[in-house]
């Protein structure tokens, strides 16, 4: 474990030491590679039993969810167990406005979904963020369940447990077709019959949806990076580490907690909207409380507060049950055990943020100089 950690740390340090142009080249190459994943269809990674494009779409979608939840849990330190509620509200906003009660185009529905979830985040957060951390977890859990019960029971609005169908797709702009690679052992051939058309959104091909979701991931990732490196990000970190101290230093902690909660909610709503347009059919069973735990597992496994860690964890936890089908039935059992094991042996997650590692290091080097009250000894 320690070797792996120092190896990963070494790779990260070496990457940071590269000149700026090399970093940009590397980032662009990585981005292109990730975009082309469903075309390259890499052996060992591709899934035999389920459509690889659809699996990749889910990976990107859950990466988006994980980035959003990471803002709430990782940056602001608020354990939100009802994230599926925001995901559901986003999906149902698209369903209700795009198909059930109006026929708005999808490109209008997605921003509306984000606005609606943002508002619902503020409505839930404004009263509840004043309560203690462990209570907040239970309140949000209750919220996630209330949302589902309302979806089932508010028949007139949501069509109840029958669900909403024929949710609109994004407008198709057909530009060019790309043939996919096919692998025979380690030899690749181009399969000209199996193509993906760039930006033709259809039921049969999930790849354009993957590209769409990935684009949203990159946009949100950029905003997330700018936000964390700003005054807002520092305020979140201060609030998470010591709320009272932050308040004394003049950080309006409640307002920043609410901001984190609402931002996270809006990203959850965006992911829900993407989910709805890809599935074209949603019903309340898509939004059970199990998924909230799955989302929390992604953030905790990846390392709370590290955006790259949670993305990797989200992709891994989505991909593994699809790749190894025998895991699929037992996946929630395994996630439960995983959460327990990590909480006990590695609470900071597999890839903790650098600052956590540094702080821990400093603690280990100078444990005796600070006593229990945090006052330096003479």
């Amino acid at each position, binding site marked *: 474990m320690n070797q792996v950690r120092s190896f990963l740390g070494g790779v990260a340090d070496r990457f940071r030491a590269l000149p700026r142009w090399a970093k940009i080249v590397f980032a662009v190459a990585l981005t292109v590679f990730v975009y082309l994943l469903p075309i390259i269809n890499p052996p060992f990674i591709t899934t035999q039993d389920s459509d690889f494009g659809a699996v990749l779409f889910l990976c990107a979608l859950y990466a988006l969810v994980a980035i959003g939840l990471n803002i709430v849990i990782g940056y602001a330190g608020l354990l939100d167990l009802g994230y599926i509620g925001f995901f559901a509200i986003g999906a149902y906003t698209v369903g209700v406005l795009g198909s059930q009660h109006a026929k708005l185009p999808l490109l209008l529905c997605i921003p509306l979904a984000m606005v609606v979830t943002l508002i619902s985040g503020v409505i839930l957060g404004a009263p509840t963020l004043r309560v203690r951390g*462990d209570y907040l977890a239970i309140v949000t859990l*209750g919220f996630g369940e209330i949302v589902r019960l309302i979806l089932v*029971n508010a028949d007139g609005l949501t069509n109840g447990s029958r669900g909403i169908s024929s949710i609109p797709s994004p407008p198709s702009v057909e530009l060019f077709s790309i043939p996919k690679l096919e692998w025979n052992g380690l030899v690749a051939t181009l399969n000209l019959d199996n193509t993906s058309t760039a930006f033709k959104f259809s039921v049969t091909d999930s790849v354009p949806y993957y590209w769409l979701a990935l684009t949203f991931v990159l946009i949100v990732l950029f905003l997330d990076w700018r936000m964390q490196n700003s005054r807002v990000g520092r305020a979140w970190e201060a609030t998470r580490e010591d709320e009272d101290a932050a308040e004394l230093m003049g950080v309006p902690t409640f307002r920043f907690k609410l901001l984190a909660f609402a931002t996270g909610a809006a990203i959850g709503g965006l992911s829900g909207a993407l989910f709805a347009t890809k599935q074209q059919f949603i019903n309340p069973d898509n939004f059970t409380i199990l998924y909230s735990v799955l989302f929390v597992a992604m953030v905790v496994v990846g390392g709370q507060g590290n955006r790259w860690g949670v993305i990797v964890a989200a992709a891994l936890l989505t991909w593994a049950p699809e790749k190894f089908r025998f895991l699929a039935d037992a996946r929630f059992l395994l996630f*439960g055990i995983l959460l327990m094991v990590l*909480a006990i042996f590695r609470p900071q997650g597999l890839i903790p943020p650098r600052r956590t590692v540094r702080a821990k290091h400093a603690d280990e080097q100078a444990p005796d100089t600070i006593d229990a009250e945090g006052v330096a000894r003479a």
Partner: protein
Amino acid sequence: MDFSLLFSHFPELTITGLAYGAIYALIALGYTLVYGVLRLINFAHSEVFMYGAFAAVWVLMALGGGKASGLGIAGYLLIAFLSAMTVSALIALLLERVAYRPLRKRNSPPLIALISAIGASFALSEAMGLRDKPFKWFGQENAFQDYVGRPREASPFPLKIDVVRLFSIGNYQVSNIDLIVLGAAIVMMIVLDQFVNRSRLGRGIRAVAQDPEAAALMGVNRDRVIRLTFVLGGAMAGAAAVMYLLKVGQVRYNSGFLLGVKAFTAAVLGGIGNLRGALLGGFILGVAENYGQAVFGGEWRDVVAFTLLVVILLFRPTGLLGESLGKARA
């Protein structure tokens, strides 16, 4: 919104509400005990309840409880209580050993403990939902079909008790099941209350809740007290499981979740960490839920409980009786 049903069926709603409330209260005692001593929300307590319910169902199936009649029913009921309470207490002990003690030794922050508890809860519930798998791996699909077949479906309680209407309050005829549930719950609560308030071990629990370090200095074995609270909470959840089976008639692998959140609501309502508060909270929640159901319609029943939880946390996060196992001489 229709208040006529509420007024016309007021006695019935109150009495069945109290019966459900008794179940919530017994489970809430487990949350409150553990919270009082460890300052930890034992999220997996709902699964402790669920395992107790399955234990009662299976033991009665194995002993042929379905054919019981007359006085035999009372005997089987006693067996059901004993087996459910034993299994629940053992599961609670296991939980403490596997999911919480390692964290306590490391002084983990409360959120990490909560994550571990959530993990344990889902692992336990999914393990029950996948109980046919190990038999399939070993090619024994047909072994123990009655017990492990269709693990995602509800398992019915084998003991059949005829509903007898004993006497009436207002326009509601009180049934024997209501009386059994309420009577058993009240006996349990009195026993627990007296145990915590009067016995030597109970004094240890109160001491650790009040000040763990001072208690340790006075010679209280903290680990033993913690184990004891888990056992007591587990036994109460086991008793609640049998009452739940009497009232509802079946149990599923995920029955614990909803009931757990409601029981937690009850504990918070009364003031978490306060035993008598948990009882009060349980009864109030059960009755409020029934009234809410009458006013808003049955499908909104669960929403009432969750909304109540949010409202209490907003306006009185310490609960009705205040939260403290030690100070309130609970």
